[in-house]
């Protein structure tokens, strides 16, 4: 006699079945993004199912995975780690997914050999610690030497960009990205880097402005060029400065009184403008709207005004010009004004922008991207964003390590040695971890169209023989010195890849039961 305890349509998968469905899902996700790995990885074209016209071409693991509706719980875990990797470091999203799916693939083989999942986890934990230690030992810290550090940054940017659409102009863009990051002076807030996309021109027409560009216009009849600008950045209402006391309402019994009130309103606005004039400025930038009347007053006072420069714009301007964001105007002496040498209207493509050059503080900057198609520009922005994220994180954690499969092989060597020192079934799991790590250079070689078995074994013997800077040259298909080739990656990125992938595979390995509730139906009466 059996009793059904679960709800209608709820399903349960147990033991081998549950494990199988977890592994299958994870491995499928890994295979999906595998082919985008490395400089010769290919892009994916994603077409929206709801909006047929909308499509996206990308190489970014996190973007691909985010856009695919998945039903498998294990797949969702992998998508989640890719997303977190994106938020933490900004790049390496494909690597983390591929590595954890490889770890699960190896684990599956061990489970077939009747090894308890918890034993595998134990082995994986040991292996992970050994791998991270080896990675740390192999990493180089140039943080104290500005010149070398800049070179590292450029190399990191180049490595990151080489797998993206920007690869043909990677020299150009890596310098651009490094310049932009160094401009932030240690802040990791990428919000301070504004990226303006304008279709037209070619990718290498993109530029980093030495000043700052705002997507706004001056008021009517105001000069298009101002030298030695003194800027007041404000967040105040310049439309109808309302009475803020709650419930206040106008009630008049004659048109004469109405006119009086209107006048009073105007006087109020005029007073405000007068107060602003006392700051001795020639440019006034407001986050909110500026109505015609105050704008006209500003024009008369030879003050240029810019309205509606939203939150980000105001914050960035404050950083660039070193001014304070102001909302009350009673104490001009206490307020810091922004400064810059020249403000002028410029044309990019067909649109008018305001350009601030010769800025005082300059802790924010603008990158203008040009390119042939919208999709291309979007992908370029994503790639650049990845590079910027990695760079900004590298300014915090200045250690670097080598790419091209070099770090993975070093870790795999250390893990293999640890396996030899371990007794019991754990050792098998540790070996498996080393194999999974070696899969990354294998996939890199495969994607580049080389004989991976040949190349990876060559790399392995090089690393084992003490040439610890060897890696794969994926353009020539040989083992080469990565330090010479300048293929450098951020240590933080690599560490996050290994530790997140190990954590995710552990989560999934521990599962022996999947209970699925009945999917909610789109039924309102329910």
């Amino acid at each position: 006699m059996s009793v059904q305890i679960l709800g209608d349509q709820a399903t349960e998968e147990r033991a081998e079945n549950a494990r199988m469905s977890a592994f299958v899902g994870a491995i499928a996700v890994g295979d999906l993004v595998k082919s985008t790995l490395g400089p010769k990885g290919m892009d994916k074209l994603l077409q929206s199912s709801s909006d047929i016209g909308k499509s996206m071409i990308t190489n970014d693991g996190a973007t691909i995975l985010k856009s695919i509706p998945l039903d498998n719980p294990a797949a969702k875990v992998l998508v989640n780690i890719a997303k977190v990797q994106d938020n933490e470091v900004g790049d390496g999203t494909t690597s983390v997914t591929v590595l954890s799916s490889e770890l699960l693939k190896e684990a599956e083989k061990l489970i077939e050999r009747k090894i308890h999942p918890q034993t595998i986890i134990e082995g994986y934990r040991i292996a992970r610690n050994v791998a991270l230690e080896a990675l740390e030992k192999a990493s180089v810290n140039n943080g104290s030497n500005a010149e070398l550090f800049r070179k590292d940054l450029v190399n990191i940017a180049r490595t990151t960009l080489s797998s993206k659409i920007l690869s043909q102009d990677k020299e150009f863009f890596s310098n651009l990205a490094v310049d932009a990051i160094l401009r932030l002076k240690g802040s990791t807030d990428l919000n301070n880097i504004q990226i303006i996309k304008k279709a037209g021109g070619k990718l290498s027409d993109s530029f980093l402005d030495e000043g700052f560009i705002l997507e706004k216009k001056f008021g009517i009849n105001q000069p298009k060029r101002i030298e030695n600008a003194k800027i007041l950045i404000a967040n105040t209402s310049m439309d109808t400065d309302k009475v803020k006391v709650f419930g206040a309402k106008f009630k008049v019994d004659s048109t004469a009184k109405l006119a009086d009130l209107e006048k009073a309103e105007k006087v109020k606005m005029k007073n405000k403008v007068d107060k602003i004039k006392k700051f001795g400025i020639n440019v006034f930038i407001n986050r909110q709207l500026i109505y015609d009347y105050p704008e006209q007053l500003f024009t008369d006072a030879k003050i240029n005004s810019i309205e509606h420069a939203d939150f980000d714009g105001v914050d960035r301007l404050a950083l660039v010009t070193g001014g304070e964001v102001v909302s009350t105007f009673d104490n001009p002496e206490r307020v810091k004004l922004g400064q810059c040498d020249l403000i002028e209207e410029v044309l990019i493509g067909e649109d008018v922008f305001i350009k601030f050059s010769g800025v005082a503080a300059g802790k924010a900057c603008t990158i203008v991207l040009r390119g042939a198609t919208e999709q291309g520009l979007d992908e370029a922005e994503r790639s650049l964003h990845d590079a910027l994220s990695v760079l900004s994180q590298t300014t915090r954690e200045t250690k670097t390590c080598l790419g091209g499969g070099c770090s993975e092989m070093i870790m795999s060597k250390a893990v293999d040695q640890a396996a030899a020192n371990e007794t019991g079934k754990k050792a098998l799991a540790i070996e498996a971890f080393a194999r999974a790590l070696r899969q990354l250079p294998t996939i890199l070689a495969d994607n580049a169209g080389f004989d991976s078995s040949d190349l990876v074994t060559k790399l392995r013997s090089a690393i084992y023989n003490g040439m610890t800077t060897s890696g794969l040259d994926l353009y020539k298909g040989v083992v080469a010195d990565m330090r010479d080739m300048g293929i450098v990656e951020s240590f933080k990125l690599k560490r996050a890849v290994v530790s997140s992938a190990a954590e995710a595979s552990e989560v999934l390995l521990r599962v022996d039961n999947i209970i699925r509730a009945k999917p909610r139906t789109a039924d309102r009466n329910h």
Partner: protein
Amino acid sequence: MAAQQQGMAMPDMSNAIVAQDEMGRPFIIVRDQGKKQRKHGLEATKSHILAARSVASIVKTSLGPRGLDKILISQDGEITITNDGATILSQMDLDNEIAKLLVQLSRSQDDEIGDGTTGVVVIAGALLDQALELIEKGIHPIKIANGFDEACKIAIQQLDKVADEIKISADASDPNLLRAAKTSLGSKIVSKSHDQFAQMAVDAVLSVADFERKDVDFELIKMEKKVGGSLEDSSLIKGVLLEKDFSHSQMPKHIEDCKIAILTCPLEPPKPKTKHKLEISTAEEFKALQEYEQKKFQEMIDCIKNSGANVVACQWGFDDEANHLLLANGLNAIRWIGGSELELLAIATNGRIVPRFEDLTPEKLGTAQSIRELEFGTTRDRMLVVEGCSNTKSVTCFIRGSNDMIVDEGVRALHDSICVVRNLVRDNRVVYGGGAAELTCSLAVSEAADRQKGIDQYAFRAFASALDTIIMTLAENSGLDPIDTLSGLKAKQATEKSSQLGVDCLGKGTNDMKELFVIDPLIGKKQQLLLATQLTRMILKINDVIISGKDEY
């Protein structure tokens, strides 16, 4: 939708009692008669026991340090991966009433003790399993239940007898507390950074514990989670963590020696609570109002300034003008803080929550050593850490991890171990884990069985073998031979007269749980037995179930 409408128009004839009118058209006399179900007598009891058994078999594999996790997929496709019995059961889509009782069972263990939620369900399942055999022998269910009650009493007595009193000091490095926390964490994924989490749990409890009253106020321990990094990056913050940033982007990100004004009034123009109307009819009035407004803002700022505060924590929002005035006066401000967080901040900093600006006085300010802003990777998320508070009795556990599921599970695991440590602060008697406590109870009960007159003997033996199930399950989950382990251990406990022998789940080479430091609080174990026995009685007493046909919808 369409199918349902059809259903409305055309009722299901197969389940209805139908007659035909003179034209041969059917009309319904009793609708859905066939859907009404009734089960009674032994059949009902048996089906209940089977239901309980299948629930227990789901959570069974989570028991012990080598137990595995479950993936639960909610109606909306969200996934939870967990090892915690209470969480597994509460998130399952259950339809069976008896199964729901088991959910309640694990929940009450969770509420009362906080740990051992899997164990209690496994024991209840085993008790019912044993009861089934007795029922088949022809023993009346109530007799069985009575026998179980008596047996449970003996088991509890035995637990009291073998319990060791351990010394607990308020010292964070107290090895006993750490061991208990580690026992509870052993089965969870956080065993990856076992020592760290155990230490966090102990630190958290000890910093808020009230040793005189032997109580721990959980309100003072806050859990915050954030994906990113790995589990090792989790930490205990002796202070408060707010998911907010400073109100003005140009305020400094780090302040030392903070004097905090905690406000529940907005920095906005006054807003009377009574219904009112303010009518402006002349230009003079308009001007007067304008001045009033500005004066009001200045007054607010002055009030704060005069009290000597340098940080403003407010439950409500700020007007742009007020915000700038705060910046201009060098006051850092945080707005839109939730009610409970504000209270926590007040407790932590020893400040008073002030509802009016006029009431601000220097002694009502909270103090903290520093407030700093945390940034997370490449996202725009920010958090504020208030540290070095004057009242150290408020802590925040900050859990990190590489994905949502692991972070959530980390929070649950830490909560469990905090509960265990709290239980020890309340009652410092412990029993040994790894099935040792269950085994000694089982031995005591089966010994007592022989002295029973009448049918109770059977119930006693059944109770003892139900307790054995825990040991067998632990052994099975750890990949050991369950029967071999059980019989070996039983013989060993009986001959050595030691209540510390349990299953060596991790292959450490010894069965002495005292040596392996696997300890559980006594009250947790007692509660498991009591609750499970109670539930068994309740289920055995039911002999009739009537399920009315569900309404069509």
